[in-house]
């Protein structure tokens, strides 16, 4: 039987909140639990394993030709590059747009909170497939003004990530005592840009990281808008490639899934470390 964590021995005060000290949860490693986890494990790993098997089929044994083709196919490489660049642009746009707004809602504009929250939840209610219908004329203007690079997709991608990013940043701001920090900085003579850059951002870095990673995952996986607006990104190219050479498509799909998995796993470790410094009370 695994020993429960010794929470009772060292009660930690969660930052700001007045919580009861956590009583250790008794972990009952029941057979039922293990069975459930095992069954789901097989179920979910099977397609991934199948992808590996499928993409390494060769004449008389295993071959990594499909995997090598990933870096050799110029269309694919350029599409992957475009997707990565789009990810960076989207994250930048999201941060530039949301951090000031979220901060101001917390500090000065609490009455606008409902409106901003509603706006940020709207993209969940407007399916991408519907948004693309309405945004086509807008993009006609965008490509007219800025050329027809696929990177212009970043504009609409920022909209798509709004719900997840805003919630992450909002939670991050809620966890720190923003008002006190800002007032302390202001009383020491800091101007607003300094407050934002030196006080707010460092203290919500965990939330910003989380929002960024979620945005990257979403951008790398986006297909609907890119495809229907006739742009080229990674998912569109994978799809087109699939008709031609399924093995390469499967290989790059698997690679993308694994990369995103590693990304999110790293995030979960980084995020935890930042948010978990508790204060131990002695006597």
């Amino acid at each position, binding site marked *: 039987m695994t020993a429960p964590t010794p929470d009772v021995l060292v009660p930690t005060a969660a930052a700001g909140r007045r919580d009861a000290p956590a009583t250790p949860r008794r972990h009952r490693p029941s057979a039922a639990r293990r069975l459930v986890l095992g069954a789901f494990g097989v179920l*979910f790993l099977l397609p991934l394993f199948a992808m590996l098997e499928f993409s390494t089929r060769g004449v008389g044994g295993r071959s990594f030709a499909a995997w090598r083709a990933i870096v050799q196919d110029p269309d694919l490489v350029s599409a992957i590059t475009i997707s990565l660049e789009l990810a960076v642009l989207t994250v930048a746009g999201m941060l530039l747009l949301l951090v000031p707004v979220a901060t101001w809602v917390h500090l000065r504009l609490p009455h606008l909170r409902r409106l901003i929250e509603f706006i940020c939840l709207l993209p969940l209610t407007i399916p991408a497939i519907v948004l693309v219908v309405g945004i086509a004329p807008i993009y006609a203007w965008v490509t007219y003004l800025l050329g027809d690079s696929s990177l212009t997709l970043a504009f609409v991608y920022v909209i798509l990530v709004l719900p997840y990013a805003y919630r992450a940043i909002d939670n991050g701001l809620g966890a720190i005592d923003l008002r006190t920090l800002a007032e302390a900085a202001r009383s020491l003579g800091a101007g607003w840009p300094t407050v934002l850059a030196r006080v707010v951002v460092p203290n919500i870095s965990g939330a910003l990281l989380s929002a960024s990673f979620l945005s990257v995952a979403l951008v790398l996986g986006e297909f609907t808008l890119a495809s229907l607006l006739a742009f080229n990104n990674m998912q569109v190219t994978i799809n087109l490639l699939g008709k031609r050479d399924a093995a390469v498509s499967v290989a790059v799909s698997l690679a993308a899934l694994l990369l995103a998995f590693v990304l999110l796993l790293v995030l979960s470790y980084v995020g935890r470390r930042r948010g978990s410094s508790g204060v131990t009370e002695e006597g």
Partner: protein
Amino acid sequence: MTAPQPTTTSAPGLASSGTGRRRFSRLAPYLAVTPFLVYVTVFLLYPTLIVVAGAFTDDRNRPTVSTVRILTESVYLRAFARSIELSAVTAAVGAVLGALLAWAVWSGPRDGPLRRSVMAAAGVLAQFGGVTLAFAFIATVGLSGLVTVFVHDHLGIDLFTRGVWLFDMPGLLLVYTYFQIPLMVLVFLPALDGLRPQWREAVESLGGSGWEFWRYVAGPVLLPAFLGAALLLFANAFSAYATAAALISQGSPIVPLKIRGFLSSEVILGQQNLGKALGFGMIVVVAVVMTLYALLQRRAARWLR
């Protein structure tokens, strides 16, 4: 020596001198929010308006409900029916199985590697991309997929005796469920975290068993969160496009694929705004579901805070 009285600061408490400066500093936050509002208007609100307005316009740009009424024709009704059925079934299956998996993960250590891996994997599968998942399943149960070949060679079963179902509704059912379950885990696990250990111990100290805890306390408390999550799953499946587009290249059994048809200029003369009407129909369905979800979330949050 007595402690000095703390001076009370008035909200917002940030001093500015002079009426000009004060007026500016009162307006300044609104100015800061304006770029955001403008951006959202251009890239979200205006397109939505185009869709909604377009649904109620005919070809000569006059307001009408005839476009929307065309939606009641059997072709489109059937597409909506299939979309709703697909979403409902995958939401129900995904909700139950996902809740089960969430429970299994939740019973373990909170910061352990298992939970982290499952959450990261769930994040990928739920969010990532219908195209990658479509290819995952082609590799598994496609015509030359691993499982197809395996059962054919070892068990003599041909998976496709009744047609290649992967590239039709049954395929969608399977693949959608595959990403609904992780989404359920993502949404429902935090609700399970909201169950306080004191409740379980209180039940035990009053003489109750584990089963009684789930029946009288945990079950009822989790029900709003569970139903809300199921609704979210429904909306997710209903709005999904990429998987269907990757698997089904000809024909459009569900609404998102019908919209695709209208965008790739297979437009029937006299019905250009039909795509927008379909879009409007989708917005209505999803909006209703999301409103119910929001209401359930409020109840869930009150109990699971």
